[in-house]
């Protein structure tokens, strides 16, 4: 059997079936002529097109949101992870604080030698005494004196360094690599702000800088809509060189968000959150 035979056989289709199909075609073409049907058809069409519009709008909105989300995530993650500057600086601070006691140790030994020289009595006693006990006693004395001197030197140096640090650096320096972008950092608790309290400027501390950089380097960004952040606890206001103000919000469940990066929150560790809280107390 060929296709032509099949087509020929189709010619045997019952006239009633053909008439029915013809009638349906004609009635579907004639339908819009009656007023009621036209209204119904138009209503149905409108409903359909409205549905299509809503669907189209939803698709466009969702895809735009997805693109924006991805861009913010990329920006957020790249920005936060690039903390090599801070780390280097932190490492160098630790190295210098380790090196300082060693220098202090040397100074203490010198001091001890000096004191040794300045104590002719002790040396004459040493020479005079035959017993080794006297010698040991002198050595012990010298050692303890040297240790005391070294300890006090270390303490003095650390205090001096801390004083220098806090004097030279401001709260903005705690922002690490972002410090260049901002000229002022203020904070206020959510409660105080609600009560009309004024903002405070925290003092620079090395611990604060570490806590902030740790929090941001370990923090994980996620969509705000999916995070149960809890209530806002602290607001940190960052002022840029242009005078713009960016607000950073800390939440009770150890989340952080920035008003200029909407829709994204960052989950930080509870320990980091507590350290930052200490900074603001």
């Amino acid at each position, binding site marked *: *059997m*060929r*296709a*032509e*035979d*099949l*087509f*020929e*056989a*189709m*010619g*045997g*289709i*019952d*006239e*009633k*079936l*053909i*008439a*029915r*199909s*013809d009638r*349906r*075609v004609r009635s*579907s*073409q004639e339908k819009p002529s009656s007023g009621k049907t036209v209204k119904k058809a138009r209503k149905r069409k409108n409903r359909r097109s409205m549905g299509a519009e809503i669907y189209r709008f939803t698709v466009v909105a969702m895809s735009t949101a997805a693109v924006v989300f991805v861009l913010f995530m990329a920006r957020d993650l790249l920005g936060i992870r690039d903390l090599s500057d801070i780390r280097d600086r932190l490492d160098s601070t630790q190295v210098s604080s380790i090196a300082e006691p060693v220098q202090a140790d040397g100074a203490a030994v010198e001091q001890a030698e000096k004191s040794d020289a300045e104590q002719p009595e002790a040396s004459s006693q040493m020479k005079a005494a035959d017993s080794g006990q006297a010698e040991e006693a002198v050595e012990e004395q010298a050692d303890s004196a040297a240790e005391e001197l070294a300890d006090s030197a270390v303490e003095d140096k650390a205090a001096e360094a801390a004083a220098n640090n806090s004097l030279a650096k401001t709260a903005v320096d705690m922002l690490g690599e972002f410090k260049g972008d901002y000229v002022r950092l203020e904070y206020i608790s959510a409660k105080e702000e609600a009560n009309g309290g004024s903002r405070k400027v925290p003092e620079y501390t090395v611990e604060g800088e570490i806590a902030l950089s740790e929090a941001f380097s370990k923090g994980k960004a996620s969509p705000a809509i999916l995070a149960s952040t809890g209530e806002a606890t602290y607001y940190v206001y960052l002022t840029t060189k242009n005078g713009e103000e960016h607000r950073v919000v800390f939440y009770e469940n150890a989340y952080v968000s920035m008003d200029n990066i909407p829709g994204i929150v960052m989950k930080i560790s509870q320990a980091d959150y507590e350290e930052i809280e200490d900074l603001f107390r």
Partner: protein
Amino acid sequence: MEDTAIIDLYWKRDEQAIVETDLKYGKYCHTVAYNVLNDIEDSRECVNDTWLRAWNSMPPKRPSVLRAFLAKITRNLAFDRYRARGAAKRGSGTMEAVLDELAECADLSGNWDAEEAYLATELKEAINRFAEQLPERECDLFVRRYFFAEEIPAIARRYQMTENNVTVSLSRIRKKLRKYLKEGEYIE
């Protein structure tokens, strides 16, 4: 004029019957013929042949639906004319596309010629049963495409469907037809 009145004229052997038929169904039959032949002159001749065939069939026939009766005559005459044409003159119109589609359901290896007359009658009845059992919309699409050889865009406009939708529906119908013909052992 009403169809019954026209049929009465045929039965009275009044030549006015042909004039009235041409007035009422001339355009329609021409479209049916044109779908198959894709040629205005051939279609016109085919319509004239239709009036002659109708004149010869009534009486004894008294068609219940004159329009469908005439459409069937026209379509079959047009297809005879199409087959009588040389391959070169057939061109590449809708008819070729329709036959290509139907080739999916045909069985080229079957020994059709040996029992042609018997099988043709059988096949016509089988296809009629197949068309009857199809859902309303599918039956309409089937008739429009494989009886009237209408173009897919025209069918889509008629039923307010997309062309793609019509193509997919027709493909499903052909699958069903192939299965049906296999079950009836019309094809292997």
